[in-house]
C-alpha cells in the first residue's frame, strides 16, 4: 500500500499523511464495501419482507416442492456455497503472496457462479416453458388456483439475485486476471470475496424463505 495521501494530489514531499487509528483497523475500501453490503442487505431484506407481507395476506399459495424440483435447488445452493469456499481459498492464497493460486481459485469461484447462473436459467425456463408461468401469471398446477404473486416474486427476487451473481462473476474475472498480474494486493481479492460471500448469503435467505417455508 502506498503512503500517498487521501487526495493523492501533490504534497507527497511532506511525508505521510498520518491518520488516527480506524475502528477495527479496516481500510477505507473495506469500510465502503461493508457499508455497501449492509445497504444491499436492507434492499434484499425489503424484497423478502415484501414477499412475506404479500404471501401472508394471500388467500392461497402454491406448494414449492410441486413447482420446483427441490433436489435441483439443493444442488444450486450447494454449488454457490462451494464457490464461497474456493473464494476463501483465493483470499488465503493472495495473502500468502501466491498469485497463481489466488488467480486459479478466483477463477474457480467464477466458474461456480457461472454454473449457478446456468441452473438459474434452467429454473426460469422450467417455470416459463413447463409451467406456463409469466410475470403476471402463476405456474399452472393441477388442482391449485392461479397465484400471480408466486410468479411475480419468483422472477423479481431470483432475477435480482441473479443479476448480483452475474455482476459478481464479472468482478471475479477482473479480480482474477489482476491477481495473476500482481496488479491488486490481497485486499482487492478480499473485497471481491466480501461481495461474493454476501451474494451467497443472500441466496441462503432466498432459499430459506422462498423455497423452503
Amino acid at each position: 500500500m502506498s503512503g500517498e495521501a487521501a487526495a493523492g494530489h501533490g504534497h507527497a514531499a511532506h511525508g505521510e499523511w498520518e491518520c488516527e487509528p480506524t475502528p477495527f483497523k479496516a481500510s477505507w475500501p473495506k469500510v465502503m464495501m461493508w457499508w455497501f453490503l449492509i445497504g444491499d442487505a436492507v434492499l434484499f431484506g425489503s424484497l423478502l419482507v415484501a414477499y412475506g407481507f404479500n404471501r401472508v395476506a394471500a388467500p392461497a399459495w402454491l406448494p414449492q416442492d410441486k413447482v420446483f424440483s427441490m433436489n435441483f435447488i439443493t444442488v444450486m445452493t450447494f454449488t454457490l456455497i462451494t464457490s464461497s469456499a474456493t473464494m476463501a481459498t483465493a483470499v488465503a492464497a493472495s495473502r500468502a503472496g501466491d498469485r497463481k493460486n489466488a488467480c486459479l481459485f478466483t477463477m474457480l469461484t467464477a466458474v461456480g457462479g457461472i454454473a449457478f447462473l446456468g441452473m438459474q436459467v434452467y429454473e426460469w425456463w422450467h417455470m416459463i416453458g413447463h409451467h406456463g408461468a409469466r410475470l403476471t401469471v402463476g405456474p399452472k398446477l393441477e388442482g391449485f388456483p392461479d397465484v400471480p404473486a408466486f410468479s411475480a416474486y419468483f422472477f423479481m427476487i431470483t432475477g435480482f439475485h441473479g443479476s448480483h451473481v452475474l455482476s459478481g462473476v464479472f468482478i471475479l474475472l477482473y479480480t482474477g486476471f489482476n491477481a495473476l498480474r500482481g496488479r491488486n494486493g490481497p485486499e482487492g481479492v478480499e473485497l471481491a470475496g466480501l461481495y461474493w460471500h454476501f451474494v451467497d448469503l443472500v441466496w441462503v435467505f432466498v432459499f430459506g424463505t422462498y423455497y423452503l417455508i
Partner: protein
Amino acid sequence: MALTHSHGTDAAHGHDHPSGFWSKYIFSFDHKVIGVQYLILACIMGLIGAGLSVWFRTQLAWPGKAGMSPENYVMAVTMHGTIMIFFVVSLSLSSGLGNFCIPLQIGARDMAYPLLNMLSFWTIVPGAAIMVASFFVEGGGAAGGWTSYPPLSALPKAAPGSGTGQTLWLLAMAIFVVSFTLGGLNYVATILNLRARGMTLMRMPITIWTYFISAVLGLLSFPALTAAAIMLLLDRHGGTSFFLPSKLILSGQLQTNTGGTPLLFQHLFWFLGHPEVYILVLPAVGIAFDVLAANARRPVMGYKASVFALWAIAFLGMIVWGHHMFISGMNPYLGKYFSISTLIITAPFALLGVCLLGTLWRARIRFNTPMLFALGLISAVGTGGIGGLFLATATADLHFHDTYFVVGHFHLMIGVTSLMGTFAGIYYWFPKMFGRTMNETLGKLHFVGTMVGTFVVFTVQHFQGMGGMTRRYYEYVNEYVKPAAALNPLVTIFAFIAFGSQLIFLVNFFWSMFAGAKASKNPWEATTLEWTAESPAGHGNWNEPPVVRGDPYRYGEGADGKGWKLQTDA
C-alpha cells in the same frame, strides 16, 4: 496507520494542482469544489421548487387567479415536495455542506474516494435534469403526491401525471438514490478512516457526528425505497400486482390486477421516509451547535450527551415509520406501538434542545448572520417538535392526518429547520469557501424575512389544519372549512415574503463570491480544524498534516488571555 490510497485515476490526474478550468471547476476531485457545485445546483432547483409553491399558494389565496388547473395544482404540490426534499435540502445540506466541511473539520486532504465523490455529483445532475424535464412531457409531471402512493402512481392511466411524468419521477429518484448512496459511502469511510492525528471520535465537532449518523441512516433506509421503486416499476410496466389490490376499478373498468396491497408500498416508502427526516434535520442541528458555540464563545454544553442523543434519535427514527400510517388500515395494535416509540423520540430531542440552549447560558452572544440562523433553528425545532407530539398520538392524528396541521409541522421540521441550518452553515463557512465574507446587512434582511415569513406561514397552517382544512385540495368550497380557508391570503402573502428573502440570499451569495470583503483565515475566531486552513483553502487543504490536541470547542480557554484555543493548540 498510514493513510493509503492508490487508484489509477489519481495517478493519471497528476500530482500537481489542476490548473485548467474544466479540471478545476467542473470535473474537480476537490471536495470543496464539489460541495460548492452541489450548493449551486441546489440553488437552481430551489428556485424551481420554491417557485412552484408561489404558484400554488397564489391559487389557494385567490382561487382561479393563478392560471392553474386542478391537474396543475396536484402536479405542483407533488413536484414541490419532491424537489425541495431531495434536490434542495438533501443537495445543499447533506451533499453540499457535508462535502465541504467533512474533510476540513476532521483534518483530511479530501474524501476517501475523490473520484467516486465527483461521480456522485455528476450522477445527480442528469437526475435533476430528468426531474425538471418531467414537467414538459404529455400529462405533465408526477401528480400522485411526493409519497407516490399506489394505485395512483402504479397505474399509468390513473391520472394525467401518472403516465410518463411518473415514470420520469421514478427514474430521477432512482438516480438520486444511487448518487446519495455513493456519497454516503464516501462520508462514512472518510469520517472513520481519514481523521487527522489526535482527532479521536469524541473530539469530532458535532457537525461531523451528525453527518456520520445521517450517512448511516441513509445507507440503511434508502434501499427500502429502491425495493419499492423496483416493484412499482414492475407494476407500472410489467403488469404485476405488488401494490395493486384485486377488484380495482379505473374509469368504470375493472382492472385485472389481483392480490397486491398498497399498504406494502406505504411501509416501504416510510421505512425510508421517516429516517429521511432525520437525515435532513440532524446535520442542520449539528451545524447549529458549531455556530452557536463559536458565537456564544462557550463550549457546547453536554457534548457527550448530545452525541448520545443523536444516536438515540437515529435509532428510534428507524423504527417509527408507521406513525405516518395511522389511518392507512394498518393494524391498530401496530398504531399503539408506533405511537409510543414516536413519543419516546421526544426524550433525546429534548436533551438535544437543552444542550443547544445550554450552550447559550450566560454567554455574550455575537448576533451575526450565521448565529441568527442558528438561533432561528432552535426556535423551528422547538415549534415544529411540539406539533409532532400531537401527530405522534394516534388518537389525535385521526383528526390531524392529511390536514394542514401536518403540512405546517413537517415544513417547520424538514423545511425551516434544515434550511436554517443550511443557511447558518453557508454564512459561517462562506469565508472558507471563497476567502470572502457575505454581506451582513443583506444576510440579516434575509434572516428576518425567512424567520417572519416561514413562521407565520407554518404556524397559521397548524390552525387551519385544526379547522379541518385538508391537504392537496385545489379549492376549499365546503361551508365548514371556509373560516380556516379564509386565512389563506394571509398565509400566501407571508409565503411571498419568505420566497422574496431567498432571492436576497441568492443575490448576496453570488455577489459576495466575487465582491465580498476579504476574509482572514479565521474570521469568527472559531476553534475547529477548518479554521487552521487557508481561506479559501487550496486543493489538499493543508501543507502539513494538522495534529489535534484538544476538544473541538475550546472557548473560555487559553492562557494568553484571548479566551479561546484552536483544536491544534497545545
